[in-house]
């Protein structure tokens, strides 16, 4: 009887761990997406040039609606 209870407890712990790990990974990846430069993080010249390049549209830019064939 005791063995059964211990097995079920272990299963419970495994399920909980999976759920918590998944949530943590998901949250940290979301936070990575939010670029926060307000905390003194170093900005490289590359970051600045990316921002400059993003200002402009490519003259060949198109709105995609898919192909007919």
């Amino acid at each position: 009887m005791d063995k059964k209870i211990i097995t079920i407890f272990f299963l419970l712990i495994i399920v909980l761990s999976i759920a918590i790990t998944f949530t943590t990974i998901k949250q940290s990846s979301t936070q990575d997406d939010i670029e926060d430069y307000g905390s003194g993080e170093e900005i490289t010249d590359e970051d600045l040039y990316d921002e400059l390049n993003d200002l402009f549209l490519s003259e060949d830019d198109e709105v995609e609606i898919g192909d007919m064939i």
Partner: protein
Amino acid sequence: MKKIWSILMVLMLMISISSLAFADESEENNDEEINEETEKEIEIMNNSLGAEIRLLQLEKSITKNLLKGNMIVDVLEGLGYNTTNLIAILAEMGYILEEVQTADPEANDSVEVFIDLKTDARNLTTQFRITLKDLLSDVKYKEVKEQIRENLSDELQNYSKQIRNRIKQFNRNQIYRLYGIVGEGNNSLVNKYMNGSSTMAQVKLQINKMVNNKTREKKMKIFSELKKEKIQNKFHASTEAENAVKNFTQRETERLQKRLEQAQNSGNEKLIEQIQNRIQNIQDENGNSGSGNGNSGSGNGKGKGK
């Protein structure tokens, strides 16, 4: 025994909750992925020039597909196939083209109109492709595909010219805004870009050089300003996209009703039947789900593409 049962119950409860969380996450990811392209496109629609560019680009894409669709129908008719369904789809696509052409880029709802009509155009394009695949064997489909080449008609070239022109104006405005942030400017560079003697790549290079000569503090300030502007645009686009999703089904039904009237006036029986079926499907879906909200966005190609 009682203890075992209560632990089992807790375990089952935990599994149900975690599976719900997983399902919720995957749904959220799907939404994000679906809307990304359209949200990116509407970021520039916070002014009339940006809205004009997007509507013109949509107009060009629909025209391109209409020309290609007509070429396909011609080829199939030459081979003796029944093209009634394909012609009906092209007729509706023609109505959408008219709606895009009459859309006002300065109107408050221009973003909503863009999202709605882009979704419709994408869905009809997919419907055309599926109908074509049902009509032809795989071998025949490939044969027809090889016969249809990229169309370089005067009409499309004219669209490309207009769009390029507007994009140049948009980029010029961006250069001036950047000059405002940097605190200095180079008018001859703008003039060269506008008259075609300098390319965008050359302009970017010059701007990068100009910014590179600034102090670290100044660079930080420029970066912060650009970032702030970008976040504002993204936020605006995201809000517009969220608003466009609201009442999408209702707006879709209204558009279809309008097109149905046009089809009835032109006497296109197949198109009347197709539109009536779609209206019926929407009503059935609403009846089943009990929700008035539909999907909108970049279109996944099936049904109401989100």
